[in-house]
């Protein structure tokens, strides 16, 4: 089993206390291009799902009757955990355990896999669950990126927006990407306008300062004392000539 899941169609956590079922499902999953991870009971499975590797599991195949923590308890724990509840769970059930399968689906399981196993059913159930998981992952990513756009709007209000904050969302080719690109353009225009206004304010400030300076000069040069001094200076220049 590869650690990083390269070239794998998805990582499948198999939870079953029966060694033969684990061996069989491990082999069938490998043959189908999946990466299996094995757990002997619900407690082991939850420990794995709550570890750093939890995000790498795409589907859980879960037996019902197990020691320590059975399938119902494990399924309930998964569905009550906000970080795990979106994970598709397929229950492993004997053919006559239809009632158990129904109960599990009511508890949040996506589907069930009847024993003895059939590779075509395994393939179909996994394919459907994996497609649902991928769709959910895309939805979560979309919602996260919508959040980035709303955060950007708040940042514009606070004056803390940086154009590259939205680069990732702007790279999308859908409507959200267009919105992010338009937002970036508008924010850029607002920024440029603000800079122009600041420049104008700066120039006006200089003009005001110059006018003030001129007024001060005029204030001095228009006094009687200054006029006397000017007259005396002119007289001195004349005498020196």
């Amino acid at each position: 089993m590869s650690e990083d899941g390269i070239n794998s169609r998805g990582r499948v956590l198999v939870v079953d206390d029966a060694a033969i079922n684990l061996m069989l499902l491990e082999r069938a999953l490998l043959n189908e291009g999946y990466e299996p991870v094995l757990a002997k009971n619900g407690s082991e499975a939850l420990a794995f799902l709550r570890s750093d590797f939890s995000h790498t599991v795409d589907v859980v195949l879960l037996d019902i009757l197990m020691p320590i923590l059975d399938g119902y308890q494990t399924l309930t724990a998964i569905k009550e955990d906000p970080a795990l509840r979106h994970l598709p769970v397929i229950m492993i059930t004997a053919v006559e355990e239809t009632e158990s399968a129904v109960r599990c689906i009511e508890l949040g399981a996506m589907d069930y896999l009847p024993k003895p196993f059939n590779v075509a059913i395994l393939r179909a159930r996994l394919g459907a669950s994996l497609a649902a998981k991928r769709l959910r992952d895309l939805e979560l990513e979309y919602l996260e990126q919508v959040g980035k756009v709303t955060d950007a709007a708040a940042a514009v209000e606070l004056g803390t927006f940086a154009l590259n904050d939205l680069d990732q969302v702007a790279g999308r080719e859908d409507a959200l990407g267009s919105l992010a690109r338009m937002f970036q353009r508008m924010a850029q225009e607002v920024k440029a306008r603000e800079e122009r206004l600041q420049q104008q304010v700066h120039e006006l400030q200089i003009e005001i300062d110059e006018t003030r300076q001129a007024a001060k000069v005029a204030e001095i040069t228009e006094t009687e004392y200054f006029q006397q001094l000017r007259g005396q200076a002119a007289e001195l220049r004349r005498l020196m000539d």
Partner: protein
Amino acid sequence: MLDHAALDALREMVGGDSAFLAELIDTFLQDTPGLISDMQTAATLADADALRRAAHTLKSNSRTFGALRLGDLSKAIEERAAHSQISDIDELIDLVVEEYPAVVVALKVERPES
């Protein structure tokens, strides 16, 4: 003795890997005496939960290899244990003990030689 449709499904599950099929049969032959012993102990101790789990595993394993009668007997034990009706369960366990040797012989015939 063995259901061939079940064996065909099993061969398909292992992708036609004969060595792995032999390994699976060996695991079944190694594990089953222990499961039967677990059922006998659980019956003696009147431990319905332990009896149910052992019978459940033997039922599942037996059906995987097409040993339908062994699977049905295990299922009957599992169901009785699930309802805590195990006062005369020894009779059913004895039938499992009687059935198992024929399953061993049939599986050894099906076991691919390495």
